[in-house]
């Protein structure tokens, strides 16, 4: 196993311990709490009214747009992380400095253009 993989073993152990702790709390609650169920108590909370339609219906397309923007901009952020960690190292190489500088600001410029485009189309306005 690689050293970098061994570092994830404590994370897995932590996952197990945290899940066990939460499971323990819920089990304790199950053992200690009363169990008197009836149909009215189990009905969905609707301020005393009967539910007239299911919650699982179509929702506004704006939320879908937010989801798409999230994917687009988050993936672009992911491309920035490797560049960011190497940026200073590249700058120290005089032959490479302007390339490192220029290529990413070209990328950032395109990213900003995309933002300006969706902004101008009114996709970021909520009314």
């Amino acid at each position, binding site marked *: 196993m690689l050293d970098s993989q061994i570092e994830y073993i404590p994370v897995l*152990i932590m996952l197990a311990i945290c899940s066990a702790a939460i499971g323990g*709390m819920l089990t304790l609650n199950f053992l200690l709490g009363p169990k008197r*169920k009836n149909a009215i108590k189990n009905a969905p909370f609707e301020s005393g009214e009967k539910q007239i339609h299911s919650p699982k219906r179509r929702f506004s397309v704006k939320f879908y747009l937010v989801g798409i923007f999230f994917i687009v*901009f988050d993936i672009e952020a992911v491309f*920035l992380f490797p560049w*960011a960690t190497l*940026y200073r190292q590249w700058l120290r190489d005089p032959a490479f400095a302007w390339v490192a500088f220029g290529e990413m600001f070209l990328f950032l410029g395109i990213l900003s253009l995309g*933002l300006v485009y969706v902004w101008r189309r009114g996709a970021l306005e909520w009314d």
Partner: protein
Amino acid sequence: MLELILLSVAKVMGIVMVFVMAVAALLTWIERKQSALIQNRVGPNRASVAGLRLGGIFHLAADAVKMLTKEDFDPETDNPLMFRLAPFLAVVPVMLLFAVIPFGPGEHFLISNVGVGALFILAVSSLGVYGSTIGAWASNNNFAMLGSIRTTAQMISYEVSMGLNLVGIFMIYESVNLQDIVIEQGSLIWGWLPAWGIVLQPLAFILFMTASIAETKRAPFDLPEGESEIVGYFVEFSSMRFGLLALSEFIGIVAVGATAAVLFLGGWQIPWVQGTGGWLTVAQVGAMILKTLFVVWLQMAIRWTLPRFRYDQLMRLGWQYLLPLSLLNIFITGVVLMFVEQGRI
């Protein structure tokens, strides 16, 4: 291997189960007491042990007992498994954040020195959205569903600028590993100014705090649960299940505090003090805890100072202010670093 496993179990118990859970539990009391002081009320003061009230601090124990002895009923749902899974999905990711946070120098105060530390935090913190989304979906309740759609839109909107804010930090310290970032922050600029993230990236610190508070769904970004408008995504959760969803919020506050302390406030570094070892290590762990608690206090104070946003204001702040400012911050950082490396500053 066995040594590694035992050591990790001990660290997880020490850091998460003792420190984080204790602070999170204490926060449930501090939050109510502080809000009471700000609003000129008395706050919780009823619970007493042997006639002693101590400002109502025994409400911690009283609340825990109450949560455990209430009935946990399932609503009429077609997804009972998902409903039961939701508390796990909400709490486990925020607890996992502490796996990569260095609480002190060396390897003993760090559960796992994952190479991609800061990216691990971004990735795992975004998993928290599943708890509220799946929980509300399985609740079969209109209020919960409204709350969950708002939560999802809010969390993914602010996640973008949260990731972009940290790019400046990665550029300056040339690493995504949190322990490396903290060690780099121990150096001094011009021989006297600590090279902390907040000094070198003040704009990013403000943007990061804003995005983080939105991620933890606290006021002024508490639209997902806005008590007086919609009841929130956890309407149908009772007893300990509700308690765990509330606890996940408080653990999230501590996690934001620790992350901000590590990335922007120098982590365990004490300014102008170099080296580690012996009592200095103890002092450095204390410094890290103090910084974490400071950011926690800051979030509490913000919550009870600012009024709640309207939904369109919330989305506008996320997409039209935070995102362009984050891009601007990366640009400025890049230009300044260019001058620094050429020796002009």
